[in-house]
């Protein structure tokens, strides 16, 4: 189980590939991998966003992410997971978050992946400040995650 808080751009699919290749045990056992990638959009809640700054609470963020992973571990069988979160200045189209879960079977991988991203969004101390035109606004809260109800 690996948590990475990174301050510069990362390529999510490459990270998954490299991580998986490095874990020989994964290749042998994992029948299922579920991955979620969240990317910065240049458009949010009706306005054009030119950039974003992501603040976090060093120490607490990692602690809460570890807790979320422990919680997932009690509910689903996870062979491994990789969690990467960007902080600092982010440009549109760059990856913000990656959650990857490897399991024997698909149900565990899919459920745990969803639990991790949903829990991360409510538990882990990260804060987004969007640059809109000449001003910068703190994002008020996370959405439900569905197009139809935004």
């Amino acid at each position, binding site marked *: 189980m690996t948590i990475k808080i990174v301050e510069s751009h990362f390529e999510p699919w490459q990270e998954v590939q490299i991580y998986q290749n490095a874990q020989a045990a994964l290749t042998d056992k994992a029948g299922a991998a579920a991955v979620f990638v969240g990317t910065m959009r240049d458009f949010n809640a009706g306005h054009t966003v030119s950039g974003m700054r992501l603040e976090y609470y060093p120490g*607490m963020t990692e*602690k809460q992410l570890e807790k979320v992973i422990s919680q997932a571990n009690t509910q689903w069988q996870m062979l491994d997971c990789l969690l990467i979160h960007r902080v600092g200045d982010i440009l549109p189209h760059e990856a913000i978050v990656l959650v990857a879960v490897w399991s024997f079977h698909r149900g565990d991988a899919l459920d745990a992946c969803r639990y991790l991203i949903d829990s991360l969004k409510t538990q*882990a101390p990260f804060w*987004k400040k969007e640059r809109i035109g000449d001003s910068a606004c703190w994002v008020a809260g996370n959405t439900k995650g569905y197009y139809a109800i935004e």
Partner: protein
Amino acid sequence: MSVKVRYFASLRERLGRSEDELVFFAPLTAHAIWERANPDLPMPDNTLVAVNMDYVKLDVLVNDGDEIAFFPPVTGG
């Protein structure tokens, strides 16, 4: 007793500082610590509180050497 008080994100900006050192003589709740540190500003609705990097309720007692943090709803992911 002494605690470190930390503020993040919009709350940090609103207060114009990221931390306080607070000294007191009887145990205080998290909420009372806010009031001591920010006598002129009621704690904003939705403020989250953590002691030693775990979420707590406002009535929890804070101990000597603890780190307490106040911050707005989280918006990561």
